[in-house]
């Protein structure tokens, strides 16, 4: 530990790094700039505003700079009675306090400015209602680390003494076996480290089919407009000439498509490089730690017991490169939609997948017992999708090209076949320890979920499914829900009863 942290008493209200003034200053100037930009729209119309802006800019800047100083001065943090307390605010004084045992996770992040100043931000997420987040925006690196470790250690200590006496005995006996490891000292095992080459591969193998579909729709829309114009002006010309022009139109459309494809590839490459730059994931005995990002660098640590399930996804291209991407879903207070703590690892090799699964969920093993979705039910569903998309199209094309236009209805068959093929892949493996869910043909998806992480189960049907004795089984977890569709009703109920037994049998915490 350095000199600085020795003289630093966390129980006394402490200010952030003095460089924090700069962080606030830049924040405030940015706010001022946006304010001015919105004014410029008005100012351009009436010249008098320019003079007003001209005269007020300097006083405003001074005011905002002073504000930054006061923001820095009034921001203090300390620990008191097992609570993290933050005082802040210039005009409106604000005091926030969070009981340490309620802290869910602590994130260390830095954006470009913080990085230039050599500072980091500490974000503390708590259980409870949304918006219950504390941020200390300007800390020195070693202080942030020290504070983070201190908070985690205190939380452990509080939870240990609060626990049931039985548990206390067992943990203390464990402690005598192996001394408690300081989470900071522990090296852990590097799960994955992504270099530039990996990231390039990831960027190139993003789901371009999705963007491709959008591109095709775009080009179709454009081409049809073009065609109408052509028909209007070229009516009465010789057929051969018209077809040549149509060819040119096609070439134009094709080049547009290529342009768009290149654009989407570049875009996803850029996104991947920014988000996953130098990604490093480390598996420790009690947590997963991950750091990544080029401009905004994020470091987060998620306790393993908070992770509710892991989901793997891939696509044909990425599979070819030998990768799968994994998402680790921790429990959170806000719900699935804005789960900021989700860990995304875009490229894992097959062996690393195995290690991740057993590393996070000890003893994870795919149960032999499984039930399947009904592929015909999927085929029916996709036929309906196909009909909704292609029937109006067929009507349109009929008016354009007479009966040959109806040929597009053949594509409906393709949809149904895809549905059947997709349905073939839907499986739910389960026993009282683990649930493995598989689905997807071109874009296979796999979920590993410890059975006891389920919070409630739902079997849903509609009138038609009831007649066919089929149903959807949904497993709700603290990190969102997973649904397996078109299962045989009786088999689904067997899984329902067994999983409910697994949850009710489980003692202790699951999140």
């Amino acid at each position, binding site marked *: 530990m350095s000199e600085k942290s020795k003289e630093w008493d966390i129980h006394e209200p402490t200010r952030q790094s003095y460089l924090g003034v700069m962080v606030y200053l830049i924040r405030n100037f940015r706010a001022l700039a946006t304010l001015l930009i919105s004014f410029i729209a008005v100012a351009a119309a009436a010249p008098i505003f320019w003079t007003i802006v001209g005269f007020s800019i300097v006083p405003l800047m001074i005011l905002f700079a002073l504000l930054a100083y006061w923001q820095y001065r009034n921001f203090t943090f300390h620990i008191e009675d097992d609570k993290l307390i933050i005082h802040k605010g210039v005009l409106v004084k604000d005091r926030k306090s969070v009981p340490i045992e309620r802290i869910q996770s602590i994130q260390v992040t830095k954006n470009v400015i913080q990085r230039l100043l050599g500072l980091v931000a500490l974000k503390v997420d708590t259980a409870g209602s949304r918006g219950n987040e504390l941020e200390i925006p300007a800390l020195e690196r070693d202080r942030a680390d020290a504070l983070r470790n201190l908070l985690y250690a205190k939380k452990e200590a509080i939870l240990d003494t609060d626990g049931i006496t039985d548990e206390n005995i067992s943990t203390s006996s464990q402690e005598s076996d192996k001394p408690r490891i300081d989470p900071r000292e522990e090296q852990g095992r590097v799960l994955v480290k992504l270099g530039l080459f990996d990231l390039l591969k990831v960027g190139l193998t993003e789901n371009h089919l999705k963007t491709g579909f959008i591109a095709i729709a775009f080009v179709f829309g454009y081409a049809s407009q073009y065609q109408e114009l052509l028909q209007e002006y070229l009516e009465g010309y010789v057929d051969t000439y018209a077809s040549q022009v149509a060819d040119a139109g096609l070439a134009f459309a094709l080049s547009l498509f290529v342009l768009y494809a290149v654009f989407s590839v570049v875009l996803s490459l850029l996104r991947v490089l920014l988000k996953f730059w130098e990604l490093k994931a480390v598996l420790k005995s009690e947590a997963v730690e991950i750091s990544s990002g080029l401009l905004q660098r994020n470091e987060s640590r998620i306790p393993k017991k908070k992770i509710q399930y892991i989901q793997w996804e891939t696509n044909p291209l990425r599979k070819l490169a030998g990768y799968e991407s994994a998402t680790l879903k921790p429990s959170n207070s*806000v719900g699935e939609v804005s789960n900021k703590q989700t860990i995304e690892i875009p490229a894992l090799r097959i062996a690393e997948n195995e290690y991740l699964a057993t590393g996070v969920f000890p003893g994870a093993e795919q149960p032999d017992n499984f039930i399947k979705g009904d592929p015909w039910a999927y085929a029916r569903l996709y036929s309906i999708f196909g009909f909704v998309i292609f029937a109006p199209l067929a009507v349109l094309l009929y008016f354009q090209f007479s009966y040959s236009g109806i040929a597009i209805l053949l594509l409906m068959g393709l949809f149904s076949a895809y549905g059947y093929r997709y349905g073939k892949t839907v499986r739910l493996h389960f026993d009282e320890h683990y649930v493995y869910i598989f689905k997807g043909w071109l874009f296979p998806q796999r979920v590993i979920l410890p059975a006891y992480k389920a919070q409630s189960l739902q079997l849903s049907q509609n009138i038609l499914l009831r007649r066919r004795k089929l149903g959807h089984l949904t497993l709700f977890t603290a990190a969102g829900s997973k649904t397996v569709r078109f299962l045989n009703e009786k088999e689904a109920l067997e899984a329902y009863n067994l999983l409910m037994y697994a949850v009710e049998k489980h003692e202790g915490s699951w999140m």
Partner: protein
Amino acid sequence: MEETWQNEEVQPSELPLVEEVSFQKHPVRYMAYRRLITTMFWSIPVLAICIPAILAPHLWMAYAGGGMAFFILISFISIPIGYRKRSYALRERDLTYKKGWIFSSMITIPFNRIQHTEISRGPIERKYELSTLKIYTAGGSTSDLSIPGLETEEAEQLKEFVSKKAATYE
């Protein structure tokens, strides 16, 4: 995390079966409550069609009215049918709720996963002396369960029972 799995054998035939529990129905006046709610719900679109239809009739209004009549019919038919489908069951370790006619579902929440419970009573519910029991689990609202149309006393007892059970697991 120390995880020691005891691997005792489980015979699927020995598991308690959720489909064989005896389910409890809601009080009959829940149907009256539903009828009032449904009437109130439809009165606005019906007025929105009827008033212009009287002032300046058009053919499309007849079509829209016809379509709406169909949905109104369905929603009133579904009140008694849905009432028969709507029921809850308590077991030692969990609570199960079944509902729905056209779209039906059964949800089971084990007591050891319940975060908190709540009773709410809206103005119309109060008129019928009914209460809604809300059961919350962690992680967003998707898995929260609300059981409307309970006898007020029944709801209180249920809440008491459920929260006591849930508390033993903390």
